[in-house]
């Protein structure tokens, strides 16, 4: 199709889509409504299971199956990215150069080294308090992955390569998924249902309340953290090394 025909076709289709959207919106209550039945059920559930962050109780308890699916999508995507970015039969991978980026100023390096432990701590905090405050395995995992890449800022690509995240991180990443399913099966075995809370719930707001949610957060944190390290490392490597 010529770009013009394509555009006309799209505009017609988009008009239909917008009409459909408006019709669907007209059947729904306005934005800002105070009628949220599922919210009420979720809050009751959060209270029963002593999880202060209601989003966490939805993600890791009431609708934990969604999160299992999501964690699996992450595992699949990372595996796929590694498989797709594998060196093809006719490609060669350059030996890591002594230092690809030489122009780092001492100040940047210092900032990198200083930020590294701080970021790691923040990441751990976000993972471990996801049941109380905003955050959890996903957000914390991303922060942890970022921390590893501060090495790039602090040292160089060579320093990052020396860590060889490409080698060990793909092996570490599925451990997150294994932990998640393992906790789920523990629920089945204990008779509270797959992904049910096995351990005593504790008191709302307590740092160790809803321990199952904490453990699931840790599992997801492992998966997301290592997964993103692998992803970024793969792309960096394509950019720097593969010819």
């Amino acid at each position, binding site marked *: *199709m010529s*770009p013009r025909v*394509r555009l006309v*076709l*799209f505009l*017609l*289709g*988009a008009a*239909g*889509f917008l*009409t*459909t*959207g*408006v*019709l*669907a*919106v*007209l*059947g*729904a*209550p306005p934005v800002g409504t105070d009628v*949220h*039945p*599922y919210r009420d*059920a*979720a809050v009751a*559930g959060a209270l029963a299971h002593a999880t202060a962050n209601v989003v966490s109780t939805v993600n890791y308890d*009431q*609708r934990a*199956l*969604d999160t*299992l*699916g999501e964690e*699996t*999508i992450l*595992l*699949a995507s990372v*595996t*796929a990215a590694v*498989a*797709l970015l*594998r060196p*093809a*039969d*006719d490609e060669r991978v350059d030996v890591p150069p002594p230092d690809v980026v030489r122009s780092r100023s001492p100040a940047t390096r210092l900032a990198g080294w200083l930020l590294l432990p701080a970021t790691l701590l923040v990441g751990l905090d976000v993972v471990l308090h996801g049941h109380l405050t905003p955050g959890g395995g996903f957000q914390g995992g991303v922060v942890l992955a970022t921390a590893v890449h501060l090495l790039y800022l602090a040292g160089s690509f060579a320093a990052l390569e020396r860590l060889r995240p490409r080698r060990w991180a793909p*092996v570490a990443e*599925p*451990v997150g*998924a*294994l932990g998640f*399913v*393992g906790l*789920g099966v523990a*629920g*089945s075995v204990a008779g*509270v*249902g*797959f992904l*049910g*809370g096995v351990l005593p719930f504790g008191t709302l707001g307590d740092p160790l309340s809803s321990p199952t949610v904490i453990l699931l957060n840790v599992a997801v944190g492992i998966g997301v953290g290592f997964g993103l390290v692998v992803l970024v490392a793969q792309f960096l490597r394509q950019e720097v090394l593969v010819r």
Partner: protein
Amino acid sequence: MTTLSPVGVVAGPIVVAALLLVCGRWLPRPVVDGVAILTTAAVGVSGAFLTPGAVTAGGWPAGVGIPLVVDGASRVLVTLVGTLATVALLFSWRYFSDVEAHFQGLVLLFVAGLGGFALSGDLFDMLVFFELMGACGFALAAYKIEEARSLQGGLTFGIVNSLGAYLTLCGIGLLYARTGTLGLAPLGAAHLPADTATVAAFVLVSTGWLVKAAVVPFHFWLADAHAVAPTPVCVLFSGVMAPLGVYGLARVHAVVFGALDVTVALTVLGLVTAVLGAVMCVLQRNVKRLLAYSTIAHIGTFVVAVAVSSPEASAGWLTDVVGHAGVKGALFLLVGVLLARHGSVDEIELGGSCRRSRGIAALMALGGLALAGLPPFGSALGKGLIEQAVPVPVAVVLTLVAVLTGAAVLRVALRLVGIGPLPADRADDVRTTGEGEERETRRLERLPVTMLAGPVLLLGGSLAVGLLTPGVLGAAGTALVDGAGYRDLVLGGVPPTTPPAEVAWSASGLVVGTAAAVVAVLLALGAVYAGRLPTVLRRRVPRQNRAVLGLERLHSGHVGDYVAWVFVGITALGALVLLG
């Protein structure tokens, strides 16, 4: 045990995949393959033993937690997923000799996605598994990274499917705004009236399923992805992934949108899909692409049956799905064998290549006959049931569609053994050829048994479905259209009492099926010998048949075109439901 089994269908493959991805590097290849095959086989077997009922994760009540629902339909689909994946993995025993278990891992995660989609009783959770199927699917389609077309097909698949998923998510969000729930059964219990807002929500929610099912005009990605994916992956794509899209449509309509009459809309979309698939199928010379369009044609037939939404039609299309999966899977595997031996999937290049190994051509011909509707294959049984449930003119069109797709495969089989003159192998500017397809294995002089066992097993399976006329398919058909029964099962734990639809041969079905097979043979012979039908079309298309050429030009491989068509499809579906 009951609480574990539907969960195991999803969690089992994920655990094994994760383990293989961790240890794959250190395990010997046969162990990796063996473990993966055992896992998919277990999924297939467990499908037959799942007890009907709903298991909600975490023990929450339905409406808060997410139920995995076992009923007649989801059992059949889980069995089909496991079986096809087992055959696909057996066939790929020698494939992709890379050290790590990426391929097996992705197939297992794909199986978890397919199984989860079939079992989930929650709209958003269905979408999550849909995206899991998608992510694994894009990667598997593009797995042959040395091959340019494979990558392009994978990316197109990725973009169009993701867009479909986002549009479905818009629909889910707006439906949630209206009802305050995400579970299929609670949504059904909300008894949505048949007003315009419900129509709009139905259209948006259905978009993703229609893209996955490759219903016209959402279908463009399918031929591009199927034609380039590794052969064992094609088996899963055509055999079960596309039909699961139709399942999503049927399930969500029956349980949530039961008040909407979509008979006219889905009949129209289904017929257009069937006819377009059949025409495009006949025009192909890349055999994988030919089979892909044949799948689109059969999907059209399924959608027509969904439109009828009677237990008989429903049992018919589910039977056809199983029968078709066996036949189409066998055909794809045979093409894979040809690719391994001759390094091509092009009909003209392969001409005469099976003069000494007629077994392959004979199996392919058998597959072609089964697609056309030859009894007693399962595909013919299902087709007969569908044709009895629809109006006569519609049934005639569907029969012709089946004949055309069967004839196209028969034509290829005839040319393989060197019957008839080959058309000139001219450069083609309209059509994808089958040249330059990368081998998926080392060049094979002798075929390993696992490679030929696959097609034989699958054809045998399709035959067995036709001969045994299993009652589970009737129960599956009834369950899929029984929205109230589904609600009772999930919300009240009451198994349905409605009697299963009867799955049996009818005299007319036997006669029409046999006649269709004969006509398909005649058409194929005509095409090969007189060089008339497809060849003449191909040579004289620019002057003679502008409509066909235009149709081919529409399949441009341009992702922008495909995106435009998705939106056109939404508009068309909406208009058809409102006017129908």
